[in-house]
């Protein structure tokens, strides 16, 4: 999904909520997922102006989950540790909201450097394990 505008953010949130519900996430988790997408998409629009978000259903032998990848060719983050520092400001030292996002998901990966853009990958697993 291209993320170039406020409307794209709303659309991405909605698609995320729909997919989360299809996977079987609870209403609460679907809201966490939609909120995560909203934060990541807002960063793209605010800092990179445009980028994209992809959503994917994950299936392992006994569990299902959702993978969200937010990528852009924006300015990139010089100091990722600073961006992820979870101090008094919930926005992190750089106002990107990444520490908050990290709290909402199970797995969090970020790759970014100045001039190289940014890719954030987060995974949330459905809490129930499937029968074999």
């Amino acid at each position, binding site marked *: 999904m291209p993320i170039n505008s406020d409307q794209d953010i709303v659309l991405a*949130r909605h698609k995320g*909520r729909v997919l989360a519900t299809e996977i079987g996430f609870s*209403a*609460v988790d*679907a*809201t*966490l997922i*939609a*909120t995560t997408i*909203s*934060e990541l998409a*807002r960063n793209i629009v*605010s800092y990179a102006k445009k980028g994209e978000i992809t959503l994917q259903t994950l299936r392992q032998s006994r569990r299902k989950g959702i993978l969200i990848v937010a990528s852009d060719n924006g300015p990139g983050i010089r100091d990722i540790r600073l961006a992820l520092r979870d101090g008094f400001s*919930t*926005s992190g030292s750089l106002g990107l*909201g990444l*520490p*908050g*996002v990290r*709290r*909402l998901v199970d797995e969090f990966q970020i790759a970014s450097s100045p001039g190289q853009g940014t890719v954030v990958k987060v995974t949330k697993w459905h809490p129930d394990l499937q029968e074999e």
Partner: protein
Amino acid sequence: MALVQRVVRFRSRAVIVDVTAMDVLDSFASRTLREIALMIRLRGAETVIVGIQPEVAFAMVQLGLTLEGVGTALDLEEGLAYLNQKFKNIN
């Protein structure tokens, strides 16, 4: 901005913002609401947010968001009751 202008024009003493329809309140939304409340307070009026859905409240707490400086209430009725109480105490 338009909202603040109307606060001035109608000499409002309070603004109730109903966010029942918002299924997501992220950091951008909460920052915007706090800024609106601040602008409105500079004009001498109070702001009350009503209708935050339970799942949204949960997500906000997980994300670490606060609505500091902004009053909140369950719904329109509670919001009005809260404001009545506040103004009664001042008067």
